[in-house]
């Protein structure tokens, strides 16, 4: 069986095209069903996010499937093939596996190391499992890619460090205060920018949020827009700041609204309680010298952007380690793929045993005819069980073989020893889709190494 991936991503296609090739619009499940009906794939998973639309498929004829899936992408999304074709990326077998592993590890993301992609890949696999379009091949592939994602997250620093300004502010607040629940946030200024950062803080479960603005009506409006926030008039600013832990300033004022002396006065009754001031206004709202006060942590928009840049640089330095993990998992997957080379032999061996059993039962039919029907059923059952028991160990052994050469030697030995017809062993991988699928299904009860479905 062959493994292919066909699709577009932020690396190959402009955003205008990616917007039109989005399987989520018409439904991933519908797409999976429609693709299965075309009959060019044996298994399929569709990974569709705002940065990529990729179809992973297991098939018998890589060339035919690649062409058909590419056509399906334009058919299903109603985009002319001529527009999609130049941007389509196609990879086969281990290259396809490596690609998925890099995607799941966040190495192929627009922002390297972003954590959402692993969840999206998991969802894609779940959707395909529900649509019953995944089988042993893609199950194994996707569970391997989940392992890659997990290893990259725990063993490298690829996903660490905030890479957006608002997230950097939240991460800093967490490093200063620990848990943000129970903290008071003060937003000075009723503009859009302050509102956005406040919303971000709100998702962190802060205790209380107060909006202060020179115009009380604006403050009330913003507070209402955020929800769960309260507004306070400008002359209560000092009292509000005294009770606050995190201050976000985003006014349009042309001069500093908080001087060093002002912040010092606020800090005195607070004693040792830290104050984290995030100044996202331009020009700045807080005098930079205020950051010199012992328990005041003052960050402006430039500082936050600088930490974001540092984090991006650090992530880049972790890429090599993540690539090593990907390479290791690709090797493991390759070993598994090779071990699957033994499956046609297993199938042929089973068929041979089964044929002998049937022939013998038929030959002895006249002797068994005198037995009551229940006893005849027992005979059938017992002979069947004997065969299963006999074949259990050889099957497991064959499937555990990791290299193609040994598989070949075993196949040849078994073919000779049991007089398996050559074409029975050799033809299986190229058998018509339905027939081979059934054969695969037949040997499943023996396959103890099958990856568990679900997480």
């Amino acid at each position: 069986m062959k493994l292919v991936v066909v699709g577009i991503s932020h690396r190959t296609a402009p955003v205008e095209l990616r917007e039109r090739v989005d399987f989520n619009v018409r439904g991933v499940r519908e797409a999976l069903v429609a693709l299965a009906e075309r009959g060019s794939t044996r298994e399929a998973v569709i990974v569709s996010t705002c940065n990529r639309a990729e179809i992973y498929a297991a098939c018998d004829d890589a060339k035919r499937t690649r062409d058909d899936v590419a056509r399906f992408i334009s058919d299903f999304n109603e985009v002319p093939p001529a527009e999609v074709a130049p941007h389509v990326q196609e990879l086969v077998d281990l290259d396809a596996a490596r690609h998925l592993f890099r995607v799941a590890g966040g190495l192929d993301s627009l922002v390297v190391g972003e954590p959402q992609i692993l969840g999206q890949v998991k969802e894609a696999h779940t959707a395909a499992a529900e649509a019953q379009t995944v089988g042993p091949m893609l199950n194994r592939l996707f569970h391997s890619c989940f392992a890659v994602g997990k290893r990259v997250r725990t063993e490298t620093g690829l996903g660490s460090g905030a890479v957006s300004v608002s997230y950097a502010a939240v991460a800093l607040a967490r490093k200063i205060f620990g848990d943000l629940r129970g903290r008071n946030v003060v937003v000075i200024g009723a503009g859009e920018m302050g509102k956005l950062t406040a919303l971000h803080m709100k998702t962190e479960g802060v205790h209380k949020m107060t909006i202060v603005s020179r115009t009380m009506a604006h403050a009330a409006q913003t507070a209402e827009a955020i929800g769960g926030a309260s507004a306070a008039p400008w002359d209560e600013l000092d009292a509000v700041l005294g009770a606050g832990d995190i201050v976000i300033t985003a006014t349009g004022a042309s001069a500093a609204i908080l001087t060093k002396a002002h912040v010092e006065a606020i800090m005195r009754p607070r004693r040792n309680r830290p104050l984290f001031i995030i100044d996202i206004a331009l020009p700045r709202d807080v005098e930079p010298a205020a950051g010199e006060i012992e328990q005041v942590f003052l960050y402006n928009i430039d500082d936050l952007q600088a930490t974001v840049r540092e984090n991006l640089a650090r992530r880049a330095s972790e890429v090599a380690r993540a690539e090593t993990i990907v390479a290791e998992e690709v090797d493991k997957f390759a070993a598994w793929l090779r071990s699957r080379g033994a499956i046609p032999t297993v199938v042929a061996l089973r068929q041979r045993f089964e044929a002998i059993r049937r022939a013998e039962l038929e030959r002895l039919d006249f002797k068994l005819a005198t037995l009551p029907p229940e006893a005849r059923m027992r005979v059938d059952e017992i002979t069947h069980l004997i065969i299963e028991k006999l074949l259990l160990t050889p099957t497991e052994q064959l499937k555990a073989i990791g290299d193609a050469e040994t598989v070949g030697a075993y196949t040849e030995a078994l073919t000779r020893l049991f007089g398996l017809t050559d074409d029975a062993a050799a033809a299986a991988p190229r058998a018509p889709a339905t027939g081979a699928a059934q054969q695969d299904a037949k040997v499943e009860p023996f396959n103890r190494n099958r990856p568990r479905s679900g997480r």
Partner: protein
Amino acid sequence: MMNITPLVIYAAAMVAYGWHFTERNPMVGRTATTLLIFAALAHTFVIGMLTMDVGHVPVAGATSAISTFVWLLALAYLYIELTTDERAMGVFILPLLVSLQAIPALRPGVEDLAPVLQGPLFGVHVSSLLFAYASFALACVIGVTYVLLFKEIKAKHLGFFYARLPSLQVLDRMNHVAIVVGWVFLTIGIIVGAIWAAQAQGGYAGDPRVQAMSLKDPKIIVALVCWLVYSFELFAARRIGWGGRRAAYLSTLGFVIVLLNFVPISYFFTQSHNF
């Protein structure tokens, strides 16, 4: 000889903690903790064997007191690590454990318990002080990490420690708890010691060590200085709102004094505590 086995395992744990701190590989982290648990177990065994051997817990002499202190500190640290799931402090604690444990490993032997030391008060005196010192050691390490993280955040250069340490508030809180616990035990230890000394001066007045038990003895005076430093830290935290970096510096200063009292003064200067 026996103290060498825990020393070797402590050293291995130190390497693992260091490796984990830089690489942040969870497997290495678990290995580090496992090694430390084994070191503490081996150490427990050693102390247990010595206790059975000589018939009392070996805490009377400076060397065996150090060994017991290392053991207590390892247990206290393990407790904190396992309850907070925070492994970053290990890299600072382990070098302390290893360097202190080297002393009993290189100077083996347990001193006999002088008759003057027999009695429950002496046991309370020594064990509360050792426990207090272990708390102060933790407070010092937490204080050092607080300052390292504080400086990174203030300098707006979020790097090595930022990625590895818990938040400033958590460190500040942990430091405070460690100081409170340490101060309580230090106070108990000193008071019980004074009561014991007064009793001993009745019964064993001829012993030169008992005669030396006064405020003129360096070990005793430095212990009181220590108590003053930590009392000030607690007072400042309550009354002036000192915390954060100032508390961290005071914790470090306090522990330097503790170490001074614990090692060089015990070995070379004291007239009253050389049993």
